């Protein structure tokens, strides 16, 4: 059959058989997945399910970025960690769980998390980025690095019993290295197109303050894995959540998908020249603290 030609051995063919059987995925999709790399920023409520499913599915290289250690209060939802690993770094614990599922997945551990200093370099070495952070400041940094490096960003968030998910920058805005005029080709809107100003501190709740129903980030994190797998397998933007957002209200068992705006020409991250001021050269000097002043963005995420 076709898939012998994709270089999978008998073992891999057996292991991934349920993907190989899949219409619109098959051996070509699995081959792309095996050769792909995905960065997961935040190995918490969203990152845990995302990493388990991406490792199980056979993604070639998985980047795990988180500066935090496993806390007892994480265990009610962060199912890639265990009671025995309380106090261990989350990236180590996450990688250990990934390896138990699939020894062949390579894990890169970015134990300082994503910062302005490493964002562009780290993001550049992956095909797709998944934002699983609990911290608006890092959300802007990750978004800006994705726009600079030309990477699709699968973003989700949840608090209490609500969740939201979208795919940003897909297709990616032209990057500075491209010969095409910056920002003029059709591309997907970015996180900063949607939210050009940081929210006020009091308007933002996170899981440590407001709680979260444990299985809810499970739903969202798994859906982030679905979208990431589709993107590396070559599904076009219109078949993903690009340009749309899922709103999940777990309290009322309500789901709706809404249409988002077109990319904003004067966006600092993905807009046209001369509006795009956050570039490979300037990201490090962009004042994320000032941008987030008076908002909770400057808080350290749990």
């Amino acid at each position, binding site marked *: 059959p076709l898939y012998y030609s994709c270089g999978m051995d008998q073992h891999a063919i057996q292991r991934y058989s349920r993907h190989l059987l899949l219409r619109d995925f098959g051996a070509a999709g699995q081959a792309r997945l095996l050769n792909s790399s995905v960065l997961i920023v935040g190995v918490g409520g*969203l990152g845990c399910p995302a990493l388990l499913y991406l490792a199980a599915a056979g993604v070639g290289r998985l980047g795990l970025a988180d500066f935090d250690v496993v806390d007892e209060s994480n265990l009610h939802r962060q199912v890639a960690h265990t009671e025995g690993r309380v106090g261990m770094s989350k990236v180590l614990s996450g990688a250990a769980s990934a390896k138990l599922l699939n020894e062949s997945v390579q894990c890169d551990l970015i134990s300082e998390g994503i910062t302005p200093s490493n964002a562009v370099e780290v993001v550049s070495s992956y095909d797709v980025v998944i934002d699983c952070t609990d911290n608006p400041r890092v959300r802007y940094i990750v978004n800006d690095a994705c726009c600079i490096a030309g990477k699709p960003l699968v973003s989700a968030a949840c608090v209490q019993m609500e969740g939201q998910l979208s795919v940003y920058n897909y297709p990616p805005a032209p990057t500075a290295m491209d010969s095409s005029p910056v920002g003029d080709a059709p591309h997907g809107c970015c996180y900063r197109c949607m*939210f050009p*100003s940081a929210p*006020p501190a009091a308007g933002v*709740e996170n899981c440590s303050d407001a709680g979260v129903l444990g299985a809810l980030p499970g739903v969202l994190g798994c859906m982030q894995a679905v979208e990431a797998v589709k993107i590396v397998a070559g599904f076009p933007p219109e078949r993903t959540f690009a340009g749309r957002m899922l*709103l999940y209200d777990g309290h009322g068992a309500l789901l709706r998908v809404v*249409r988002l705006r077109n990319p904003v020409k004067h966006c600092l991250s993905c807009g046209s020249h001369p509006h795009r001021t956050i570039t490979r050269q300037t990201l490090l000097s962009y004042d994320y603290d000032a941008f987030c002043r008076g908002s909770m963005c400057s808080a350290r995420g749990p």
Partner: protein
Amino acid sequence: GSLEIQQEIMVNVKLEFGGGLELLFDNQKKISAEVPNDAGNKLKIGTLLSWIRDNLLKERPELFMQGDTIRPGVLVLINDCDWELCDGMQYEVEEGDSIVFISTLHGG
């Protein structure tokens, strides 16, 4: 002589609040509202925002509006579309519109 009066009509809209914004509205997620408007004029969504703040909002108006517009981090959806696809603040509200205000989440 005739007394000239400004005739008022009512516009019915279905409002929804989510992502925590419902807490500003006495924990109501859905409110059906009759919004007064001058006959002959269209109801601008900017006018609707102020009317909501003055008539429905129970607390902390600064978490709903900033100046004359919505505060940063709140997504406004008109019939399930980002209001930026519908002229944003210039949108003219139609009878029966569904208008959703949802605060973006940041937790993970």
